[in-house]
Every structure is written in structure tokens, then in C-alpha cells.
């Protein structure tokens, strides 16, 4: 096979591509500027005594702060669970061809996105002024159980309701965008195989929508971590409020804000790595089809810069399924 030999044996007379790369002096100047600024910043952190790093270290693992951190994590996790579950239901309702269902979902999103979260929190906290007693029973009929609103809706419950219900409105839009990103041919295929609507949603649509849903949802989770700090208006000692309680006594405002910030940064770092892991899981099968990974995107977008061009190991190694 002459053709095969030509491909497999590269003879000496085929010239190597040894071109001089394009120079980028701007990149070098930029890098030097950034390095100098960075060095100045680190220097001032060390030499400025007003940072009181000893105080920061002393409070970093104190019981008060750790208790606040736990409360923050608890609120973030529960609010996101409520937000994601309710948001997914809302998104599916929104996509329904039942007019009442989709209108109800649209109305919900409109209301909860249209009013400040702070107002919603205070509203839930003071719900007893509107409804002193909450009861469960037949609509317009007899009551089965009933209780005082002040007992049923504690500060924690009010915070959770405010954060979770608000988050659901935003999550609904994210999930809706994800659902819309799945090609309609997938629905035809699922239907032709005899799959029910629910099964199609669970097994075909949502797993593919996840690719689109996860990055903004990661954003929302990290946002929620810090949004929980506004529940201090309900006198809930979460991370930031716990730090504030300390510096209200000791007047060490800056060091304690640094303690809280360091914890927020630490948790954000962990959440980011969790997000990357989940993204990788749902990227199964992507990257070799019409939709690509960020890596593949970068390779093509910057292809005109020779130095970004990877030697392209036959396409397979770029994402290779999982």
C-alpha cells in the first residue's frame, strides 16, 4: 500500500514547521505591572499593624464565629434545596401547555423577583400581624389543625421561607433556560420509545439541561452564601452577625470583618470545586458533538494565537466522554 507508507513514514525532505512565533511585548509589560502591584499589596498586608492579624487568628476558630458559620451553612443549604426543588417545579409548570399552570408559575416569578428580598424577609417574620393563627383544613370548610403564627414561624423559619421562596423564582428561570436548551428532537425520540412525560423529563431533558443549569446555579449558591448575611435583620446570629456581635463588644471591627470574610472565601472555594466536579459529571458525552467544553472553546477561539494551539492529539484526549 503506497498511500499508507506515505502517511506513516515521514522522510527527511519534508520540512519541519519551525516558524518564529509572533512577539507579544504588551503581554510582558502587563505581566510586570500586575506583579509589582501584587507585591505592593502583599507587603502592606504584612507591615501594616492595623490589620491585627493576631486578633484575626484568635477569633478565627472561636465558638461564636464557628456557631455563626454553621448557621450560615445551614441556611444556605436549606434555602438552596427549597429554591431548587420549588424552582424546578415552577419551570416545568411554566413549560406546561395548561394555561392556568404556566400563568401561575409566571405570576410567582414576577412577584418574587419584583419585590426586595429584605421586604420578603420582614414580611415572613411579621406574618402574625396579618394571620395571627395558621391552620390546615378543607378549603372553605372545617379546620383540622391550627396554631399560633408566632410559634410556627420562628426567625429561622421566616429566614428560610424568605430566602428559599425568593431563590425558587430565580432558579425557575435558570431551569427554564436549561430545558429550552434541549433540542426538540430529543422529545420526539423519547415519545417514540413510549416514554411518559415524567420519564422524559427525568431521564432525557433534565440531565441534558444540567449542563446549562449548573454554572448559573453554582453562582446562585455562592451568592446565597453571602445573601444569608441579610437575615441579621431578623436578629439571626449567622456568620456576619456573629462577627458584628463580637466587635460591638471589643471594637475590633476590621479584624473581625476579616475573620468573617476569610470564612466566606474558604467556603466559596470549596463550593467552586464542588461545582466543577458536578459540571464534569454532567458533561458526559459533550465536547465531541455540536456542543463543546470551555477548553475546546478556548482552543478554537484563540486558535489564531499560535501559542494557545495545543498539538491536538487526534481529538480524543480533549474531553473523551467523561
Amino acid at each position, binding site marked *: 500500500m503506497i498511500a499508507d507508507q506515505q502517511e506513516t513514514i515521514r522522510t527527511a525532505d519534508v520540512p519541519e514547521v519551525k516558524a518564529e512565533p509572533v512577539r507579544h511585548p504588551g503581554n510582558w509589560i502587563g505581566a510586570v505591572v500586575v506583579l509589582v502591584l501584587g507585591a505592593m499589596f502583599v507587603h502592606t498586608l504584612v507591615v501594616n499593624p492595623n490589620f491585627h492579624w493576631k486578633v484575626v487568628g484568635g477569633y478565627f476558630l472561636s465558638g461564636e464565629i464557628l456557631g455563626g458559620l454553621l448557621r450560615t451553612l445551614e441556611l444556605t443549604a436549606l434555602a438552596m434545596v427549597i429554591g431548587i426543588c420549588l424552582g424546578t417545579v415552577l419551570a416545568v409548570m411554566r413549560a406546561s401547555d395548561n394555561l392556568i399552570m404556566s400563568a401561575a408559575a409566571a405570576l410567582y416569578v414576577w412577584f418574587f423577583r419584583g419585590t426586595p428580598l429584605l421586604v420578603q424577609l420582614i414580611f415572613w417574620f411579621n406574618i402574625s400581624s396579618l394571620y395571627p393563627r395558621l391552620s390546615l383544613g378543607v378549603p372553605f370548610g372545617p379546620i383540622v389543625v391550627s396554631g399560633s403564627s408566632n410559634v410556627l414561624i420562628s426567625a429561622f423559619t421566616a429566614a428560610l421561607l424568605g430566602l428559599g421562596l425568593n431563590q425558587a423564582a430565580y432558579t425557575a428561570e435558570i431551569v427554564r433556560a436549561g430545558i429550552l436548551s434541549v433540542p426538540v428532537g430529543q422529545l*420526539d*425520540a423519547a*415519545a*417514540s*420509545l413510549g416514554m*411518559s412525560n415524567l420519564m422524559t423529563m427525568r*431521564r432525557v431533558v433534565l*440531565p441534558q439541561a444540567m449542563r446549562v443549569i449548573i454554572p448559573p446555579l453554582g453562582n446562585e449558591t455562592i451568592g446565597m452564601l453571602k445573601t444569608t448575611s441579610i437575615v441579621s435583620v431578623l436578629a439571626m446570629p449567622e456568620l456576619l452577625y456573629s462577627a458584628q456581635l463580637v466587635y460591638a463588644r471589643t471594637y475590633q471591627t476590621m479584624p473581625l470583618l476579616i475573620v468573617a470574610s476569610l470564612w466566606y472565601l474558604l467556603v466559596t472555594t470549596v463550593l467552586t470545586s464542588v461545582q466543577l466536579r458536578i459540571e464534569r459529571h454532567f458533561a458526559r458525552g*459533550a465536547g465531541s458533538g455540536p456542543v463543546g467544553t470551555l477548553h475546546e472553546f478556548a482552543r478554537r477561539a484563540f486558535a489564531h494565537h499560535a501559542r494557545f494551539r495545543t498539538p491536538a492529539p487526534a481529538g480524543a484526549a480533549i474531553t473523551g466522554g467523561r
Partner: protein
Amino acid sequence: MIPTSDRPMVEADRVWKSFGKTQVLRGISMQVEAGEVVCLLGPSGSGKTTFLRCINHLEKISAGRLLVDGELVGYREHGGKLVERNAREIASQRAEMAMVFQQYNLFPHRTVLENVIEAPVRVKKEPRSEATERGMSMLARVGLADKSSSYPGQLSGGQQQRVAIARALNMRPKLMLFDEPTSALDPELVGEVLDVMRSLAEEGMTMLVVTHEIGFAREAADRVVLMDGGIVLESGPPQQVFLDPQHDRTKAFLSKVL
């Protein structure tokens, strides 16, 4: 090969379908016998694909009657009136016939084998081992046993379409609907898909194929049906229709594609 059965596999009686004011099907009547291979030909926009989708109830017909294996598709007759079937009944009707799409429509987030066993396991509640065993033999049949753990995106178009056929076959359908299965393929990949379809036809699978592949229709079809403007222009054995077309519009269409 003339298979005998007491009732036709597909029976369409003056089927009409309109999307808003556009009438796409204007009284289609035809029958497909069990074991028969029928090719639907005609220019784009003639309603071939819509008719195929109606058989699977992916589209609801506006008038007429459409039966598969003696059962009304999507409806039940109850005291002389038509009653819409519920979602579960429609799903189980669909599970009896399989469809292969122009764009393959494989599930990109599942491996080839997972694609092939998904519906038998989830819809028909078959034991996974049984569905897997048969799925592997279906993949072997379309020549892709070694690709079972690949993802669809890693395969060529022709390979993906063969997986789609294996996925359809693994439902053990009594009728297979092909919607332009080779139209999205590069020319050199068309042959491998047609080969699989030809072998299915030889084994006696009942097939209704919308296609532009005149060569395939001539060799593999028992009958070809020519559609244009939502009606059937003419139908008959391929030799007869191709060599001696009766209708002027048939002649015009054939002169362009033959």
C-alpha cells in the same frame, strides 16, 4: 415475498392534517401489509414526514381514520364516538412501533448501550440483563458491538444512525418508521445505513420509509407511494411506478431524481 395476514399493519383512510390554516395532508388513504416495505417518495413539503409522524401520534390528525394493527392511533371508539386515549395508552401504542429520525436523536448523555436499553428497561420493565444481552446482539447486527461504551458524539453520522436503528430494534417493534434516515449523512456514509435497512427488509420487518434514495426504493421496497401536495399521486411496485408513471407530476418528479 407476499406475507399474509388478516389485517393490514397500517391502514389510513382519508387522513387530513392541518397546521393552523395550512393543510399538509389532504385525504391520504393507503395500507401497509404486515411484512411489507413501503417507500414514501415525493418533493419536500409534500407531507411525507407529517404522515409518518401521524402514524406514531407525534402529530394528531384532523380528519379521517388511522389504524395500526387494527387499532385506532391515539383514540378509542366508544359507543360510536371517538374518545382520546390517555397518555399511558398512547405511550404503549408508541412502544409497539419504532421510529428512526433524520437527525438520529440519540441521547447524547448516555452511552451507545445505554441508549439501546433505556426504553426496554424503563418503559417495558424488562430485566436489565435481558435488555443488555439483546441490545448487544442488536448492536452486533448493525456492526457496532465494539462501540457499546462510546458516547454518540464520538461516532460518525452513519454510526449514530445505525445505533438509532439498534435502539429501535431493541423495542422489538411490529412496525418501523424511517423518516429520511440518510438525508443528514455524508454521501460515503449513506451505504452503511441502507445496508442495515435492506437486511431488515429481507428479514420481513414491516417498514414505512420516507426517503430520497430512489436506488433503495427500487431494490428494497415492495411498493412505492408517491406523494405531492398532501395527496397520494400514485402507488405500486417500484418497477411499475418508476418505469411507467401514470401521473404527469410523478413523471416530473421522477425526471428530477432518477
